[in-house]
């Protein structure tokens, strides 16, 4: 099966490009989506990320990696930033960066944790907290383009921490072939039959795919979450070469 080339080939874009903030959205009390315009952007695949670099007036520089939240759309990129208390960069991006301001981005980066819309097999997406961001790019890329059956299992502390909740509800109704299930770890809604607690094997059995459906599984979130879920999937019978993971640090 021919695989679509990453736009621009798999040659990694090493160049730092100016990126201008054109819009921002509130997702949750701690998460913001930033819409950037990057001149010369050649596109990207869902699941890829960019490095974002900030330079202060005195020349001090620092950079962080952020997953792209939306599929390729000309020169526009979307990042969803979760503010971490005491962080050097995330509070600045979430709260201070204003439309018209510029940062630099490098990418698209990463060729392993990607989903290509030509892939027809079922897909299981398992998200821990802000690990939902690259998976949302896959959900958004699928709409109207692919009939691959998608199941998203999204683990968050409490309902107010769900990023993209209204859009996911709409897509589960309208996109066809997309199922979304939430696992609450600290506080579940009153009418939820599942008591709050960490993701368990039963949750993946109830809301995932049986191994004989041969899904490709994408798991993204804090490292302890990713390791736990990967272990559950393997124990369930999913072969490890069908499980792709992206860990981004932090505690679950």
């Amino acid at each position, binding site marked *: 099966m021919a695989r679509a080339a990453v736009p621009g080939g798999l040659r990694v874009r090493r160049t730092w490009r100016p990126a201008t903030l054109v819009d921002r959205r509130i997702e949750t009390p701690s998460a913001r989506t930033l819409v950037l315009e990057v001149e010369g952007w050649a596109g990207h695949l869902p699941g890829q990320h960019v490095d974002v670099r900030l330079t202060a007036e005195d020349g001090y520089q620092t950079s962080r990696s952020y997953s792209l939240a939306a599929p390729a759309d000309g020169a526009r990129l979307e990042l969803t930033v979760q503010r971490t208390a005491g962080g050097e960069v995330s509070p600045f991006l979430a709260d201070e960066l204003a439309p018209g301001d510029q940062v630099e981005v490098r*990418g698209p980066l*990463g060729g392993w944790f990607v989903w290509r819309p030509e892939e027809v097999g079922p897909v299981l997406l398992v998200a821990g907290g802000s690990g939902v961001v690259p998976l949302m790019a896959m959900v958004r890329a699928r709409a109207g383009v692919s009939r691959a059956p998608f199941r998203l299992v999204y683990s968050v502390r409490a309902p107010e921490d769900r990023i993209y909740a209204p859009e996911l509800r709409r897509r589960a109704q309208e996109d066809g072939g997309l199922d979304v299930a939430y696992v609450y770890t600290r506080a579940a809604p009153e009418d939820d039959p599942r008591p709050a607690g960490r993701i368990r094997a039963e949750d993946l059995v109830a809301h995932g795919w049986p191994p004989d459906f041969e899904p490709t599984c994408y798991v993204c979130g804090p490292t302890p979450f990713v390791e736990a879920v990967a272990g559950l999937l393997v124990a369930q019978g999913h072969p490890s070469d069908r499980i792709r993971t992206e860990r*981004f640090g932090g505690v679950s």
Partner: protein
Amino acid sequence: MVMQSGGGAEYDGNLLSGPLADVFAVEVTTAVARCGGCGLSSVVAELAVYGPDPGLVARCPGCADVLLRLVRTPDSVWLDLSGTSTLRVPIPESERPDLAQT
């Protein structure tokens, strides 16, 4: 005997994509790296990665030996791959020879 505490690496090899772009012309995180210590082959994206400060350290998911170290100084990228015995980097489709012509 030194045991290692459970878990460990905060990141995985996906984090190496940007820094390695300063050194390699192709995406390396999809490459397969063979550990010089235990011989396990892993996709670079799935290596256990520590850092990014003071540097990136990628370890074998099997034996925890160091496969790759990378430090960015103001004027250089320092890269140590001595723990990797082989690296198999996929050639992009568009650059593969067209066998129909042979």
